[in-house]
């Protein structure tokens, strides 16, 4: 079983410069579903695909047992922009923000 701490520890070795590095266990403890947030300028000039590939490579062993790994990988500038937008959106109209973001709990078909 993989734990959030293990993943975090492994990623910290590479992303020792990270402004944010969060690993959250979303599986309710069974260790197969995680959410990742890394803010690091190492991602600069990398495509979204390239960024995730790097994570997959670093977590090659863990990926064998992890069922789902949601990844949010930003550069510092991107992250700050996102935070700013979030704050502004929250100020203006919370309802529109909700629509803009792809919602996780879409209705049954």
């Amino acid at each position, binding site marked *: 079983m993989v734990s959030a701490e293990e993943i975090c520890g492994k990623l910290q070795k590479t992303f020792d410069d990270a402004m944010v590095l969060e690993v959250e266990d979303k599986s309710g403890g069974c260790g197969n579903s995680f959410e990742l947030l890394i803010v690091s300028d190492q991602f600069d000039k990398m495509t*979204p*695909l390239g960024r*995730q*590939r790097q994570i*997959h490579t670093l977590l090659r062993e863990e*990926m*064998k047992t992890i069922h*789902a*790994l*949601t*990844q*949010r990988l930003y550069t510092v500038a991107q992250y700050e922009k996102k935070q700013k937008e979030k704050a502004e959106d929250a100020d203006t109209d919370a309802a529109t923000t909700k629509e*803009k*973001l*792809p919602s*996780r709990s*879409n209705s049954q*078909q």
Partner: protein
Amino acid sequence: MISTNVTQLSDEKDLRKALEEKSQEVVVYFWAPWAEQCKQVESVIDDLAKKYARTQFFKVEAEEFEDISEAYEISAVPTVIIAKKAKVVGRVDGVNVVEIVKQVAANCGATNGLSEQAATTAADSSPVELKQDLNTRLKGLIERAPVMVFIKGTAAQPRCGFSKKIVNMLNEQNIKYGYFDILTDEQVRQGLKEYSDWPTYPQLYVEGELVGGVDIVAEMIESGELVEMIPKGSVAK
């Protein structure tokens, strides 16, 4: 009419007769017209029928012959059953071409004067070639539509939260896409991970290139990058 050892079943008596009377193996392939992935198995069955000319092959439209399908516990198509005197001696679920070839070789080789070993060795002899076959097939699947998504379940009924999310996102963007249900095919499911060096599903491809999974697609929709990538013909007005 040319006599052949392949029968598209139209009267279930034919199959019953073959199963009861023949002391040799009968290969029964269950299919459905709406299941795209059956086409590949169909061509494999045709090839095998040529090689194993003394074996009787039946193609059974699973929903047309519910009783037979039920008797053999067919829950999904394609499924290939090898029966001898109405007893099931081999079974392959899904588009597992390698396994179908292997099982037919193992069970029908002797009848056709091919020793089991010779037959299975023939099937096994070139893993490289098989791998190439799989890669060709994967490439074909990826390029089947300008926008292709590989998901768990169907587009109408995704069977995983992430697959559902990606399907919903594409629908919301009015993007026209083809899909492949990886749960129907273990070979594709494992093979594509390696082929594209991407360990998880869903996977979205645009014009044969991997775009990514849910996170990437969500981000690219938000930033507008995805729409730019999609060929014009693949966006519904």
